[in-house]
């Protein structure tokens, strides 16, 4: 069982997310700021980071970069207060492994965490992934009534990152 580090500056939200994950059988740790989280990562064994984006001090996006710099294999799921294009595109370009948009249901968060662990397991077993983790996440997001225009735009951006010379449309149709 790998522990999930949950970072949100609001305790109510943080505790809520932790309880949702604990109910799905995950062990959790909590941190109120990105700095606190980075300190915890030094000492604790953590298998996944779930972090809010908008926080005082380091933002979730900055935390993502810090984590990747220290532990490239540690997956990060970002939680955003608004599913704006900017959030999605920032998450895509900085290499987030998942994205959850508030307000989300228990299942949304639980499945996002589960799929990240599942991909990590596949990767560990040497199974190649055709699509980026986020692309898959975005496709599931569509099923969760994410704004289709935003999703399409983010997918297009993602595709440009992966295959810089191909057209947008191919991703949409694939």
């Amino acid at each position, binding site marked *: 069982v790998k522990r999930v580090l949950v970072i949100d500056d609001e305790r109510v939200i943080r505790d809520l997310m932790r*309880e949702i994950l604990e109910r799905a059988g995950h062990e959790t740790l909590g941190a109120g700021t990105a700095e606190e989280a980075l300190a915890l990562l030094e000492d604790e064994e953590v298998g996944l980071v779930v972090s809010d984006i*908008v926080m005082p001090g380091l933002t979730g996006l900055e935390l993502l970069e810090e984590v990747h710099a220290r532990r490239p294999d540690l997956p990060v799921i970002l939680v955003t207060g*608004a599913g704006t294009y900017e959030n999605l595109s920032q998450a895509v370009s900085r290499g987030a492994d998942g994205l959850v948009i*508030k307000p989300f249901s228990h299942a949304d968060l639980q499945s996002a965490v589960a799929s990240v662990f599942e991909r990590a397991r596949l990767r560990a077993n040497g199974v190649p992934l055709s699509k980026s983790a986020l692309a898959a996440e975005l496709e599931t997001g*569509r099923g969760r009534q994410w704004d289709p225009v935003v999703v399409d735009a983010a997918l297009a951006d993602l595709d440009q990152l992966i295959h810089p010379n191909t057209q947008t449309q191919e991703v949409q149709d694939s």
Partner: protein
Amino acid sequence: MNVSATAAAFGTAEERMQRTERQLIDAALAVNEASTLEEALEALAVSARQLVVADRVSILEWDPDFGAATLVASAGGERTRGVRIPSNELNSRLIARGESFVVGKEHIEGLPDDVGERVRAMGTLLCVPLNFSGLPTVSFQAIWHEPIGAQVCELAMSKLRLLGRLTRVAFRTENERARAREDARLSAVLEAFPDGLVVRTPERAIVNPAGRELLAATGDPPLKIGLRELDGTPVPEDDTPLLRAIRTGEPQSYVLRVTRYDGVERIHEGRIAPVLDETGSVFATVTAFRDVTEAQEEKFVTEQFLERLFEALPTAVAVVDPETREIKSVNRAFLELVGLDEEHVLGQAPPYPWWADPTKDVPARTEPTMRWEWVYRKPDGTQVPVELVRTQVQGTSGDVAAIVVIANDLSERRAFEQRLIQSGKLASIGQLAAGVAHEINNPLFAILGLVEFLIIDAERGTKAFERLELIQSTALEIKEIVRALLDFAREHSDERAVISLTDVAAQTVELMRRTSAAKQIEIVERYAEAVVPVEASANQLKQIFVNLISNAKQAMKLTGGTVTVEVGRDGDVAWAEVRDTGPGIAPEVLPHIFEPFFTTRRDVGGTGLGLSVSFGIAEAHGGSLVAASSVGNGASFRLRLPIAPEGLA
């Protein structure tokens, strides 16, 4: 008196000749300058006497039958004019033939004794006839008390004949003299007159120097000049002010364009006075005129300019009589505003036919300038909201000469204001949304997340369970509103490119089919052209289609039906239409559907932002989004965008 003595007395032959010439010229000038015939003859007699150095020189006018002569002028003697001098047949014959002669005894034959006595007492008497055409025959009679030599006699005769010929050239009839005198007087007046003056008689016209200058004429011109009215229309040749003055005998004033003799056109102001004879008919005219081009051009240009300006003003203007309130004048814009011809407008008094409510009169006049709002009605029944501004125009005596009413069509302004409010609402909501979304989503997530725990723990079927579900669904409604707000505030994808409207529509339809397939609803696509180029943000246009198709589906959720998505091109306008076969939009709802937060589906999760967002996007692209519907016939939304000028990139 011998010749040498004469020679000594009169100088050398050359000197004599020069003196004679001078005397002859002086004589001719004296005759010419005389203002009456009488004076001219006297001058001629004096000159002749000096010329031939006679004791006396008389001029005789012969009777037509040459039987006798009358003394008409005399120099050097007491004989007075009018004296009758009898003559004989010989003398008469010689005079009639123009022959000069020295009077001898045969010339006095048959004459009364006293006449013969007198002639015989004279030393020498010469007779030299003068034949002036147009005048009675006259002759010189030169008398010397002492007898003179034959040579001197011949010389004297030659001199007198020469003088006669010279003066004949200079001689003028009494009529001519009288006219010259008149002319001289007139000339003086004409010369002194500062304005142009023309005096016309049937025979000729005299123009003063000022007039010649004004007409750019040298000498007395033929005075047939081009005349045009100030607006450029030619004055008919048979109806010039001059001819009117002659016809009517009344003075005529005029201001006309006159083509001068140098071809330059100027504006002259003048007055023509006819001169009447005792029978009351016009025998002459006097025209006084001056050049008023500068002043007139300015006035004319101003008048014409103002008239054109009045006519061309895009604002409706009516001029109203202050007493009767009859319409005196209106411009084209006014006629367009009220939708009537000039004939149905001019002369109208209140209630004017274009008032929407004829029973209501305008507010009572209280101030020189008033402003109020009113409603006009065109003949086709269209009501036009107008703003009226009424201004009094002061006459020269300070009274109210006219009332000018300016009518501003408020329809466009109202529509513009409406759009401005719309845009303002949209903009402020956009700014608000981005900031608010985060703030709402955190607590909302807390509510939803916690409620979900409670629902999991609660016992199904209990009142508490129902209430928790109600809390959850209500909170999810908030979530939808926030999401819609964020759509609105979306910062991305304003990057425009030349894309095909058909592609955007097709892609969105495909997306809609994938994301939410409602079984009883069919989406039909009709694309007239594969490529309809527009310069736009593909994502924003997709959003319009998503909104319109979602609405159409929503409208037919219960009934099922068909959503038709059509794209086409109409000249330089690209258009797309999304229509459904649903129940349609109620007429009272239709004007509000683009207003933010206006929704008829609050109970089913409508946020009321989709159409305002779409409207805003269409406008931002220089296009429009128009809704049409009637109850029972479904609704249709037509998006219009300008065709991209350079086609597809």
